[in-house]
């Protein structure tokens, strides 16, 4: 009984509010429309500004934030694509690394079977060019010396596109600096071999001109464009470091007893900034 009476009461209130409320609000809004914009309406607007301004500021924040959403989404998509590409590259590199490890192990086994002296691993240290002497442009002084394990006649290598390239040889060592003689210097020499004809010769510097590759056999089939690498016969340099490529061969002299070729060095002497100085590998004789 009590429940019914309270439900009836609620219903009556709802029915009353259904009639009164719209009438009140319509009346107020008509009054607001009819009133001049100055005076009470302007005061009401001022009061409302305290209520509505924070929301408008927040809305502006939303709009400003959403302006960058497009770029952010684009950036995320690009990062996702790059991530996929890098993952693929990493998988390929891991595969290549595994293959290289296998080849290395096979090489070790074959070397042992043939009772050859195992190839020495390259170890070294990166050094920065400290300064150049104006009178000796074909040499540089680097910021590493005896303290870092650099020894006289250590090979200096630069790296281009991930490949080591012969740059010079250490000719003076002090406690904290070393002087490196670059390839172009006339005092520089190294035993090298050509990649296809497999002929060995003596490479010497020739100043501003291309390097000289002397003592090639007369019947050598060496061609222009062949790569030149340091030879295992060299007492200073480890074998297999790229030096440059044959730019020309001198075959005109009828009385020569050997061939001479010109080699364009792969390392650019003028721009050498950092050098990898090879330290003596463990187990090698001093």
């Amino acid at each position, binding site marked *: 009984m009590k429940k019914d009476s309270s439900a009836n009461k609620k219903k009556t209130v709802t029915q009353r*509010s259904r009639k009164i*409320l719209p009438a009140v*609000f319509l009346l107020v*809004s008509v009054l*607001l429309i009819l009133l001049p914009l100055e005076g009470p309406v302007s005061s009401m607007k001022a009061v409302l500004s305290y209520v509505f301004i924070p929301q*408008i500021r927040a809305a*502006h924040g939303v*709009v400003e934030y959403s302006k960058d959403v497009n770029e952010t989404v684009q950036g995320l998509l690009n990062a996702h694509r790059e991530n996929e590409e890098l993952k693929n590259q990493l998988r390929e590199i891991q595969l290549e690394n595994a293959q290289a490890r296998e080849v290395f192990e096979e090489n070790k086994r074959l070397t042992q079977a043939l009772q050859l002296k195992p190839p020495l691993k390259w170890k070294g240290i990166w050094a920065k060019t400290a300064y150049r002497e104006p009178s000796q442009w074909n040499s540089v002084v680097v910021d590493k010396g005896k303290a870092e394990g650099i020894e006289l006649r250590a090979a200096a290598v630069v790296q281009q596109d991930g490949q080591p390239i012969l740059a010079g040889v250490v000719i003076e060592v002090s406690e904290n600096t070393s002087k490196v003689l670059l390839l172009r210097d006339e005092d520089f020499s190294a035993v090298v071999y050509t990649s296809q004809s497999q002929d060995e010769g003596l490479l010497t510097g020739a100043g501003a001109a291309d390097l000289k590759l002397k003592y090639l056999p007369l019947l050598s089939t060496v061609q222009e464009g062949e790569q030149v690498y340091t030879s295992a016969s060299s007492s200073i340099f480890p074998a297999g470091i790229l030096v440059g490529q044959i730019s020309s061969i001198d075959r005109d002299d009828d009385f020569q007893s050997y061939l001479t070729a010109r080699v364009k060095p792969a390392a650019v002497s003028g721009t050498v900034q950092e050098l990898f100085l090879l330290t003596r590998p463990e187990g090698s004789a001093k």
Partner: protein
Amino acid sequence: MKRIVKLILFFMAATILHWAAMALLGNWDISLNLMLIFAIAVCAFLPPAYGYPTAFVSGLFLDFFGVQLFGQHAFIFTLCACAVYSLENRLEFDSVVPQMVCAGVLTLLATLGNLILLKVFAGFSAWNGIGSFIGGISCSILIAPAVFWAVRRGLAAKGRTY
């Protein structure tokens, strides 16, 4: 009391979204009246004691930015609330189609009502072109189910609209 607090929070969220939608859709010359959809949704699911004040205050929020007339939106929104309460027995607001139809028709009528009120009381025409008119109504129809869903989910009593 809890419902009043919730309603105030929903109203504030609606004002923020309305302003943001106006700024974003303004790039395509579309004026979406999100406050009207919100007021209709509140009237569809809440008793008149909540619906009419919400409609009136939502209208006042839009009037706040007007410079020609003050109270026209409040008037139109109150009329729309009357329309929703008179239709509640004929339309099932739990379904999406009645929600979209109601939002579309009332947006159309409210836009026309605003134009008439402005012309009568301020002698000013606020016609923004057929593109803006149709775009606004289309957006209202599309967004109505989401607004109705949010209001029903957040404000309406369980089991019964009210």
